[in-house]
């Protein structure tokens, strides 16, 4: 029997798309949250972190409620004659939702570690906030941002529960590697499951090695402590 590689391509496509979205979304939300001083800060933080603490099936259940036929967005999609549930987009959405808290938490942590005087110095020099963000905040927080990206990538790659709930297990369409492993093992096809396990291992190792190499070379400057 021909070995079906489609879960690999689906997984890679999903994970890369999801990591890209999480990367920018996570940095943006982390930036806004670290500057935000309003009353809702605590509640917002809980909401942004929740997908990390909840079991993935619960996240999937909520997504099903929101995106499903009778949900808020489900109605909208129906109006445009599309459907998100059980499509490839659903795998991306669930991967983004579960990996977002890791990116957000790690990045926000490193943003908030920056000496406020450094940012204030730039402000007194008349530098606009956006330039401060791209030229100072992001480069100084680079190690944190890189760590957050790797964690998000790993989490997105391993995503199972929420994906199963809202994207299902449609071979060639929504079946990612973790799903393929589960259904292969469940169907007694241990060899097939083992191949997928090896592939996941290889992907993880490559990504970890690349990022380690990347962050070490990028660390031209050390943050001086005061």
């Amino acid at each position, binding site marked *: 029997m021909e070995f079906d590689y489609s879960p690999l391509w689906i997984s890679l496509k999903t994970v890369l798309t999801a990591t890209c979205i999480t990367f920018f979304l996570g940095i943006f939300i982390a930036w806004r949250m670290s500057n935000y001083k309003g009353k809702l800060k605590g509640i917002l933080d809980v909401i942004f972190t929740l997908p990390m603490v909840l079991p993935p099936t619960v996240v999937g259940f909520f997504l099903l409620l929101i995106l499903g036929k009778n949900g808020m967005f489900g109605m909208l999609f129906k109006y445009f004659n599309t459907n998100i549930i059980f499509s490839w987009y659903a795998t991306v959405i669930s991967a983004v939702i579960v990996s977002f808290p890791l990116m957000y938490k790690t990045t926000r942590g490193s943003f908030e570690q920056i*000496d406020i*005087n*450094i940012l*204030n*110095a*730039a*402000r*007194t*020099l*008349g*530098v*606009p906030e956006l*330039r401060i963000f791209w*030229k*100072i905040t992001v*480069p*100084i927080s680079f190690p944190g941002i890189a760590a957050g990206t790797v964690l998000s990538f790993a989490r997105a790659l391993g995503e199972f529960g929420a994906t199963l709930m809202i994207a299902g297990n449609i071979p060639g369409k929504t079946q990612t590697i973790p799903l393929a492993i589960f259904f292969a093992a469940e169907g007694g096809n241990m060899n097939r499951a083992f191949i997928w396990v090896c592939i996941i291992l290889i992907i993880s190792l490559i990504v970890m090695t690349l990022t380690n190499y990347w962050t070490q070379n990028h660390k*031209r*400057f*050390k*943050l*001086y402590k*005061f």
Partner: protein
Amino acid sequence: MNILVDIEKQFEEFYMKMKFNVDGKNIGLLGASGSGKSMTLKLIAGLEKPDRGIIKIGNKTLFDSDKLINISVKDRKVGFLFQNYALFPNMTIRENIGFALNSIEKNKRNKIIKDKTNQVKLNGMENRLPIELSGGQQQRVALARALAVNPEILMFDEPFSALDENLRSYMVKEIKEVLNDFKGTSILVSHNIDEIYRLSDKIIVIDSGKVEAVDDKNDLFLNPPNIITAKLTGCKNIIKVNQISENEVMICEWGIKLKVNNKFNKKITSIGIRANHIKCGELLKESKNIIKCEIAYINESPFKLTVYLIAVQNSLNKEKYNIQLEVSKDMWNEIKNKNKFIDIYLDPEKIMLF
């Protein structure tokens, strides 16, 4: 330039009600840590916002809660020097100095960077990172960076506290030179009276979020208007007294009468005398204002001594020293007949009255 500050701000620990109106080239804010002096600087710079009030510099209103004016930090044209220099760690010295000049045409920008680098004597270091510089050099980069954007005011927040003793007096000298060339106003925040004295001409004394005194530096050090100012300007001896006549006071606890010079007919409740104004040793010439003291302990520095004394008549409380006296080592060695007891002389001209 004239600086008007009249603001209020609530903090968890204290209520800040800062009000002063000074006209000077180099202004010093003197206060103990936690007195609100750094906060005052941040409020003027726009890094913090007062609850209400007015901040005006020259004719420009920076903040007015009634008229809803609050000019943003980046438009206030202040150069702010932080205690830890706050250089951008990911940029070279050249990039640090030129960071805010990105809208200026390249040749002009390079000229400004070169000028400022020369002014703070950092030529040849342009391509280094902040981490590769010493504390004094980092401070000069911060100074060059602030000067590069042509600020109207230069603000220094405890600029020398992270430097060692030698470097500190050297940097004070360097900054004094920069301030001499600087056309605008400078405000220096410090708890160190030496730094404040050397770098400012007008001094504002701050304690627990309130202004205690505003004066020319020499007047302030000669005639501090109140006890807090006297203490903050380095007066170590403040003693409670009862006034007997216009020019005579009594230290009740010790039963000692002292002559004072009450030029302004003040009502006196306390007197103060600086530790280095007290004379000791051969005092045969003097007949009044001599106090017999017991030496409690002596603190020895390389070139001077701080002697802690207990007035002999004050036999009730021997736990705490009453008077602190400072004398150079040479002078101390000239005093003959040193034993446990010593006579000191309080010059009426040097006694401050409160």
